[in-house]
């Protein structure tokens, strides 16, 4: 009897906890600005994971061509006509709790490299974005600020 009650309690609580975890993870959704201030990135949820694309560039045009900047450093030559504005540079982040999103990657359009990445939320409007190669210790952290502050 006691066991049945325990299972019932777990069955009732589990969806609530899962919903709370998803809601906490969704705090990442919004528009963010890296420390260099040259771009703005909109983070959204697709399926169960989080992705970020460039929605604004301080200098949208290539100084050489005077045309919108393209992903000219992509290692796949067939994709070098992809415009940087709209480019998904954050991919596949999974919320693992405690204000941390892992398992994702970040793309650097300046050199065409993709790095492993971890996102940590310092407060509701500040992110630590750490890109690294291999192990987390070998990386660089950038601080991103939220643009449109959500109401509390």
């Amino acid at each position: 009897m006691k066991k049945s009650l325990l299972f019932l309690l777990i069955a009732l609580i589990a969806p609530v906890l899962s919903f709370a975890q998803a809601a906490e993870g969704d705090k990442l959704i919004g528009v963010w600005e890296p420390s260099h201030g040259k771009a703005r990135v909109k983070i959204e949820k697709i399926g169960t994971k989080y992705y970020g694309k460039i929605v604004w560039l301080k200098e949208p045009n290539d100084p050489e061509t005077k045309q919108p900047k393209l992903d000219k450093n992509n290692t796949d030559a067939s994709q070098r006509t992809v415009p940087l504005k709209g480019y998904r540079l954050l991919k596949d982040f999974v919320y693992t709790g405690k204000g941390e999103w892992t398992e994702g990657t970040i793309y650097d359009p300046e050199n065409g490299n993709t790095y492993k990445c971890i996102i940590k939320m310092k407060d509701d409007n500040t992110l630590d974005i750490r890109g690294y190669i291999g192990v987390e210790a070998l990386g660089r952290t950038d601080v991103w600020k939220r643009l449109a502050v959500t109401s509390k």
Partner: protein
Amino acid sequence: MKILSPNKSLFILATALALFTASCGTVTTKTYTIDDVTMVAEGPLFDGSNTLQATVPIDLKNLEAWATPENVEKVTVKSITFTTTDSIGFDRIRSVIFQVAADGAQMQQAAVLNPVPTGVSSITLNPALDADLKDLFKQSALILVADADLNGDMDGNLEYKAKIEFEVSLKD
């Protein structure tokens, strides 16, 4: 050093070759088509990049009765075509980036079209030649994601029909 007789050497060589061939298996390449998928971005939409999405199940049995996720060796994009019956066609779109995602695999950029021609009711994107969507095809469903760069604000939805052909290599 002991030298093997020609017969023995031949036997060892034949056995090694047979083992190697058996371990390789046969690779079959088939076309997996996802047709008539409606991709939608719900309005209001704003100038810039807007996301159209659709989720489609994957059934490898459509390729071969014996096919399972373990048999998937390589998957590339063969062609992607978007069509619309809307009178404005694709005139509101500057460019389209097409990606494929799934909950259990990494998103892959699959194709691009930049710029999008005006006055047409159908567009064909340029597939990413280096993309391998193998891990995505081991999932039960794909999330199709198209980022369309709008040249102005829009009140209604943006809706296109997509036809995608993948080249799937299966190893038995």
